């Protein structure tokens, strides 16, 4: 239409445009970006799910509660110190440690649920909706997909945990904590959060790659997380050895942080148990998911 003779000046003109489909001539980014894309879309999709919002709400409430409690406790200890009641202060554990341990204990439940909603259903729903065909007919490899799903599973939970840690650390500094000590505790807390999310996400993705039914995947995930915690606490009470805590998927990270802070009561080789256990749970889950993905229907000729 747009090649015809030049219209006479002043003559009325009109044109009809070609709205049909055109080729794309823009640039394309390298495959490494795929992981970020997969994670970003996963987080956006999860935000639509009621469960994620509810869990984040619960996390917010717990954060508020614990901040008030921590603030009051630290303020009180400072007052005692001022009046020289050293004995009483010694009895309360080093407040800096609270920053890390309290954050981990406060967000225990919401983190488990967040990873459950974001992770335990992820691959199962993908299996059901045929998302593998969608992903693997495109320039995406299993590795991209899995790491993307992992980041998607821990996205919201890590946000919640980090916000809690920072708030408590700031509060601690405000109530007279020495900055270096608080930073040390903060770092230990971060290691704990990292280990916990890795372990939980591994178990969630492993469980969710076993079935198409999201309900079953979530039950298996809760069963494992809940079961190992019950067994761990049961055994550690019965055998009064803190090392048993390492057994629990979610508890291991707390005792790992405690070990870093030197308050876990573990000596020698036992100090490594919590770290090893967290990494083991995470790796086992991811390997299982990887093997299931390699064997997925779309991969077999």
């Amino acid at each position: 239409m747009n090649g015809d003779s030049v219209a006479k000046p002043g003559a009325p003109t009109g044109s009809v445009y070609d709205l049909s489909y055109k080729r794309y001539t823009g640039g394309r980014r390298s495959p490494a970006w795929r992981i970020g894309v997969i994670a970003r879309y996963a987080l956006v999709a999860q935000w639509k799910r009621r469960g994620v919002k509810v869990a984040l709400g619960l996390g917010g409430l717990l954060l508020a509660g614990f901040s008030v409690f921590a603030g009051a406790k630290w303020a009180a200890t400072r007052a005692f110190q001022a009046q020289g009641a050293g004995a009483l202060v010694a009895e309360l554990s080093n407040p800096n440690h609270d920053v890390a341990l309290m954050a981990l204990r406060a967000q225990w439940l919401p983190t488990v649920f967040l990873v459950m909603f974001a992770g335990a259903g992820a691959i199962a729903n993908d299996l059901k909706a045929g998302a593998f065909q969608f992903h693997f007919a495109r320039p995406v490899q299993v590795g991209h997909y899995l790491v993307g799903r992992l980041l998607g599973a821990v996205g919201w939970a890590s946000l919640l945990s980090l916000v809690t840690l920072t708030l408590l650390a700031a509060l601690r500094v405000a109530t007279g904590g020495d900055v270096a000590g608080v930073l040390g505790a903060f770092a230990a807390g971060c290691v704990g959060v990292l280990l916990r999310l890795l372990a939980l996400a591994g178990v969630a993705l492993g469980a969710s790659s076993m079935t198409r039914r999201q309900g079953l995947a979530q039950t298996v995930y809760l069963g494992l997380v809940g079961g190992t915690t019950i067994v761990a606490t049961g055994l550690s009470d019965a055998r009064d050895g803190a090392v048993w805590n390492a057994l629990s998927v979610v508890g291991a990270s707390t005792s790992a942080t405690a070990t870093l802070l030197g308050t876990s009561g573990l000596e020698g080789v036992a100090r490594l148990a919590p770290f090893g256990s967290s990494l083991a749970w995470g790796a086992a889950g991811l390997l299982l998911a990887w093997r299931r993905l390699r064997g997925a229907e779309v991969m077999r000729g």
Partner: protein
Amino acid sequence: MSAMTVARVEVTRALRRSSSAGVWAVGLIPSAVGLVTALRGGSMLGTAAVLLVKLIAPLSAVALVASPVGEGYESRTVLYWFLRPVPRSRVVLGAFMGYASLVAVGLFLSGAVFALIHATAGHGAVSTLATIPLALAFEGAALTAMVLGLATLFPKWPVAASAGLLTLTEAVLPVMLGQAHLLSVSWHISHLMGLDLGTEDALLGTVPQVSAPVSVIAVLLFAALPVAAAVLNVEDRELQ
């Protein structure tokens, strides 16, 4: 006769499902815990029994029954049964017989292994321990009835509905209100097994004393109610 066909089919399907094997393995954990502690000389009868009755039995009932039954209605495959000259109530009954036998046998085995270990480790006469497998099997059948009923009524979230109710009646309510123990199947069963769990008094109210026959009737009632509700509901339900 046709109920038997449904039962046979449901059992065959369950046995071929990979998830059932997983649940049976979990069922043996308390026996393993019992074994480990028994060898170390401590008496783990209390904790291991609690695990079996309060956690393993409900967990296996939910895991083995809730999802497949819910799936049957959600994916409407149950239609293949309904488009036959057989009343729908018989299909529900057949499914119950199939799943109940599965869960009961599973729990009976777990109980038997558990009792055997404790007998050899010398922590209780064989006679008292014999009641454990039987009571567990009875609990398994009762819990199956409850889970099946709930999964039929709420096929969209079978696991959530059955797990939710069981956590309420078995764990949350008894802790809060002493009398609520009457609602708890596992409490009645532990009563029948001669283990007095839940003796620690609840926040308010006192834990009632109840004779064995009353416990049996209570459990039968808890089992019958959801199944009856399911049968009535399914009779004129239009599967959309």
